[in-house]
Structures are given as C-alpha cells and as structure tokens.
C-alpha cells in the first residue's frame, strides 16, 4: 500500500537515534512484527531511493506506527529534519514478519544497535499472542548490544513489557564488556533449548547468533538488512543466497529477495 502519513512526532532519543510516530488516515490492518516500510525521504533526486525502515511499534491497532532509526547518511539525516505535521510518503507494510508460535513459552531476543527497532513490535505481539492469557506466561529474554551505552535503546520499554534485559557494550560503558553474542554464548545453556530465538542487527552478529542457535538446536528467526530499491520484489536488488530447503519454487535461483521473501528468514536457510 502507498500511504501518505502525517508525522505526529519525531524526536531524538540519544545522539543520532530518533523515534518517529506516523499517523494514518485509515487504519492499516494486520501489520506483522518484522515487516517494514519504504520511506520517501524528500522530493529531491539526491538521495533518490526510498529508505527501508522496520516497524517499531503499531499504534492504536493500526491508526499509526512508530519507527526507530539511526542517522547514518543523507537519507536518515533528511528524516531527522522532518517535523510534526509534515506529510510522509511510505509503502507498506512490506515483507514477511516474524512467525510467532501461538503458545510459545520462552523467547530469546538478540538485537544489535538499531536492530532493536523491530523487536519492540515483536515483543508486544508475543505479549498478545504468546502462551497464557495476554501472553504473560511467555518468558522473554532480551540480549541487546552496542558499541557504547549510547547505542543501547529501549531498555525501559523492554523492562516495562516484563522482559529480562541483558546488555553488552563493546567499550564496557554499560553492562557486559564485549559483543552481545559473547554474552549470549555465556548465558545460554543446554536447558535453554525450549526457547525460540529472534534476532536483528549487523550481519556479523546475525551470523554468530545463528551459530549459537544451531549449536543448541534452538529455532532461530533473523531479520536481514540489504540495500533495496523497490521493496516489492520487482528489482531483485536485495537478494540473499539461501540453501535450497524447499526444492521447486526457487529452483531457478539460489537467491531469495529480502524484501518479499524476508526480511525475516529462518536462520538455517541463509548461506553466509
């Protein structure tokens, strides 16, 4: 869907990290956590393309959404300059989100830096759908990592949702000193095998997470981040190499599109 949204707020949470809330004219139904939108960042041709952004939160059952983003270049800089009341043009919701087991009892979430963005929506959905009334029985552990304490976002929100939060920073300025997957490795044991894992973050982190998941045989869904042009499966820019798990439908190609086949994949499927 192409939507003209209205910016309800756009505020800096910590240096270079912003949260933007966008309101819609009509309710957008059935947004699945892990899905994303393609944002037009301006009328100029430089930057030219839309920017993919994960859905951070669904607001009032689809009357709007929030995104959480990091300013890393021209496009996100322009986004940071947008103001309350401005119109914003977006395509979405796009892609396949996380699959949540109806009575999933335990979830491990592993996020690196801005990778936490889509995880809030996921956790809220787990709360809604997970085991027990209002998902209160689903135990959620969140491992969250970043370079410094300034890259660790949403901790209070996570705790507010009842999640156990484990923090790692590379410079040790908050929590465990080191990369988050090392913290994960240290914290996880055989008995955690009843968990489902969900992860989003830099590629290296996703790969380590996948290795850990494979070792302990924990089902793991990861959300990938690839450069995109169309977001709808038309241009074939965003491909990732996959193992042929299922033979026929993709028999003609070792590639899948992150935009339409993902961005969430079963971790074992990806060829790193």
């Amino acid at each position, binding site marked *: *869907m*192409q939507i003209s949204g209205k910016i309800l707020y756009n505020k800096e949470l910590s240096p270079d990290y912003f949260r933007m809330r966008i309101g819609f004219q009509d309710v957008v139904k059935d947004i699945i956590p892990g899905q994303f939108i393609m944002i*037009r960042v301006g009328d100029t*041709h*430089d*930057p*030219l*393309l*839309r920017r993919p952004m994960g859905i951070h939160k669904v607001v009032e059952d689809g009357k709007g959404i929030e995104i959480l983003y990091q300013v890393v270049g021209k496009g996100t800089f322009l986004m940071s300059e947008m103001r309350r009341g401005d119109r914003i*043009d977006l*395509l979405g919701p796009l892609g396949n989100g996380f699959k949540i087991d109806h009575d999933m009892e335990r979830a491990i979430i592993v996020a690196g830096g801005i990778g936490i963005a889509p995880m809030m929506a996921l956790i809220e959905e787990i709360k809604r759908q997970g085991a027990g009334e209002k998902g209160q029985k689903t135990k959620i552990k969140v491992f969250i990592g970043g370079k410094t304490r300034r890259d660790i976002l949403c901790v209070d929100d996570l705790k507010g949702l009842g999640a156990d939060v484990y923090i790692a920073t590379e410079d040790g300025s908050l929590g465990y000193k080191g990369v988050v997957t090392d913290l994960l490795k240290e914290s996880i044991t055989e008995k955690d095998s009843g968990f489902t894992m969900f992860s989003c973050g830099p590629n290296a982190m996703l790969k380590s997470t996948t290795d850990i998941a494979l070792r302990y045989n924990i089902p793991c869904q990861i959300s990938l981040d*690839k*450069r*995109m*042009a*169309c*977001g*709808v*499966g*038309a*241009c*074939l*820019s*965003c*491909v*990732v*190499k996959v193992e042929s798990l299922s033979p026929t439908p993709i*028999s*003609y*190609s*070792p*590639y899948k599109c992150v935009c*339409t086949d993902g961005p969430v994949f079963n971790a074992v499927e990806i060829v790193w």
Partner: protein
Amino acid sequence: MNNPDLSVNIGGIEFKNPVLTASGTFGYGEEYSDYVDLNRLGGIVVKGLSLEPYEGNPPPRIVETPAGMLNSIGLQNIGLNAFITEKMPFLRRYDTRVIVNFFGMTIKQYSEFATKISDVDGVAGLEMNISCPNLDKGGMIFGVDPRLTYKVASAVRKATTLPLIVKLSPNVTDITVIARAAADAGADAVSLINTLLGMAIDIDSRRPKLANITGGLSGPAIRPVALRIVWEAAKTVDLPVIGIGGIMTANDAIEFMIAGAHAVQVGTASFVDPDASIKIVDGIEKYCRDKDLTGVEELVGSLRT
C-alpha cells in the same frame, strides 16, 4: 475541451498511451499490481527473460549514486517456461500490452527464444536486449558492434513475426550506426537507452561497492545523455523510437517525445514512486490539452532547432 488522443502505434502494436514500464524495474507486473492500476499503462515490458532460468550476479547488486543508481542484477530471471506458466496467466487478465524483453548469450539462444515465445497468447511484441555479453565472441557485448547487432537482430527477425523492438546500449561512440544496423536487420522499432556502465568504490575496504565491480547507471542523472541519444537515433532511422532513461515526470517524458520518441519507458522512477508511470500518463494528457494538441503523435519529433 478536446480529448487528446494518447494512443500510439509502434510497429503494429497499438498502445493506448505512450507510457510503458521499463524492463527489470517492474518485475512481471504482478509485483506492482497493488500499487498501480495496470490497465492504465500503455504497456508493460517484463523483466528480461532467457530460455533457461538465470541466476544473475552475487549481491551487493545496487548502489545509490547522485540522482541515480547502479545495478548489477545480472539478468536474474525465472526462464521462459516459468514465465509462460506462472506469469502470463496473470498478465493476460489486464488490458495493457505485454512486451517480452529477452536476451541470450549466443545468437542461437536469441532466435530460439523468439521462436518459442511467438505462439504464446497475450504477447504483443518482443524487446530484445543486446546489452549482454556474447559467449561466442568472448564476452563482447552484442550491442556495441553494428555487425553483431545486425546479425543477432536478423536471426531474431527470421524467427518471429511478432513486432520486434531492439533495445540499444548507450555505451557506444555512435548510436546512429547501431540503430541503422537494427533497422537494416528488420526491426520494427528501437528502444533506448539501456543503462550507462558505471562503478563505485568503498574507500574503507577499497573494494567495489558492487560484487560484480561494474553496474548499470539509471535514474534522472542519465536523462540528459539519454535524451541526446534518443534525438540522434530518431533523426537517423526511419523506425519508431522508444525513449528511456531517467524519466521521472510527464515533463521528462514530453522532452523525449519532442526529441523524437513515439513512446517512453519508465524505469527507476517506479522505485521512487510506484505510481510514477500513471502520473506521467495523466501529465501527458494534461499537456496535450493545455497545448491544444489533437494527440500525442503531434508531439513526436517536434523539436524546433
């Protein structure tokens, strides 16, 4: 208020308006059908097909550049058979012209493709992409050599009675000799331009930003070059010309028509705005009305120099 006639006839194909979507930027139509009323398009040129499925280049496959983008998709496609069985039934449901863009690595592959597609119901015409490496000639690109262009276009011409559009590469010294070669081979039209060859480097890793090293530049950045090439080709050959390259708005499309294009294709613009092609149709109609033209054909080649 008059109702300008937007229809154009190119090589026997009657398009309801002169706006087509460009190959590789609109998938097989289906991908954009939630965003665009396909019935409103003059035509859809599908993603470039080959006889067999083709896996394309490894990622990363795109880089954004100032007012443009580089792509090295490498012609990934599902192959002729999957297209016929999985994609054509969908496309046949729409009232728009389906143009099949295709390529081969040998002349034989080209003509075989043309033969096989000719019986398929719902295909209005063919667009042959000659900007791919020719395996018989050690990887030289068909479309940069007039003799090869002539040879491969002649072979396809013999293989099919469908209207034949030859899509030309801009990476040549003189487009007119290539366009003439296509005309001599019996093409019904030429379309141009395909992408300009470009490159980008990541200065931290000192590696190319595309796994394939080089890629094709598209988008508004290339428009002035595309327009010049279209003008040169249109002046030279007696065939209808389809203009492509950086067309984002109706104004851009009209520039190409004034330069001599009978129709245009919208590529990269669809990524920026899925609806771009429809807005262009509307904008052309408005322009014709404002200028009191009876139809778009009046525009074609009307440049006053």
